[in-house]
């Protein structure tokens, strides 16, 4: 039963310097496992740190560690942007 959230966007749309809270993870299989192991679980706060010169991958700050994610993988993480 998916709860409807007004402003759910894929993580890939976050711009450097902004933060968001993880809502759901649509990735499956190995990618899902990996993301969960890295601490990408619902309610986790992720900060977009910077994008590489060609626009992909992007560095994200997740639970105290900076992790690079490809756009294809980041697209599979739905987040709710945090407006500060």
């Amino acid at each position, binding site marked *: 039963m998916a709860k409807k959230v007004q402003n759910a966007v894929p993580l890939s749309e976050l711009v450097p310097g902004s933060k968001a809270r993880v809502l759901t993870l649509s990735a499956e299989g190995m990618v899902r496992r990996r993301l969960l192991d890295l601490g990408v679980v619902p309610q986790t706060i992720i900060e977009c740190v910077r994008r590489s010169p060609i626009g992909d991958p992007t560095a994200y700050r997740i639970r*105290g560690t900076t992790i690079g994610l490809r756009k294809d993988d980041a697209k599979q993480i739905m987040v709710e942007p945090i407006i500060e």
Partner: protein
Amino acid sequence: MSCMCIEKRTELLHHKFGIAASAEQKVIALAGNPNTGKSTVFNALTGLNQHTGNWPGKTVGNAQGTFTHKGQSFLLVDLPGTYSLLPNSVDEQVARDFICFGQPDVTLVVVDATAMERNLNLALQVMEITDQVVLCVNLMDEAERKGIEINIADLSKKLGIPVVATAARQKRGLEELQERLLDVACGNIVPDPFMLRYSQEIEQAISELELKLTPLLKGALKARWVALRLLDGDDTLLQDIERYMTEEPLQDPSLGREQEVSPSWPQA
């Protein structure tokens, strides 16, 4: 693992893992996330008494070292740094296989004091596999610099295992770490790890599987943990059980390949 004959274990370690432990040595598996100072802890404990090589048949490095504490000799096996023990990669599989099937006397999990949240994931996974766990909260010096305080006594109580704070770079806390390893290895302390409870549906499935698994496993692995992996759809575990736990090599061509790999120590 008191139930297992020591000679048998020595042989298993030698043939399947390329590790030469003597009968009276206590074997310690060293696990941890990458960048937690795991190797610093390894070096600080073992000094120059090290031997590096590869896991048999795998292009993953392994380091073994020895140290003696209060007359007891220990063999410390440095596992690859991993975030998880669910075998997504060769590194993770090597780490998991050793903790599960190498029958270490103690598994020492090194965590980064500045990123506990991320690191405890691995500790919890190890605690699902074995009770013989000691937690080393390393990089305490960095945590202090960042103003992070960690209540070690409370953490130990909540996790049900010995927890030691260290700053391996400054050689802080190592004495106590050796003491706790000795305690757990010799049975002076019997850890009672916190068990993660899953949703009701999953717990129901676990208990059904546990009933069937317990007589099959004969205490060699925790039935609860195997049940969880089966529910996870982890096929690699079944292959590994066949590889490490069956007495006679099976007449399977894929297993035949394994035997060509030299079981002896790789020469440095």
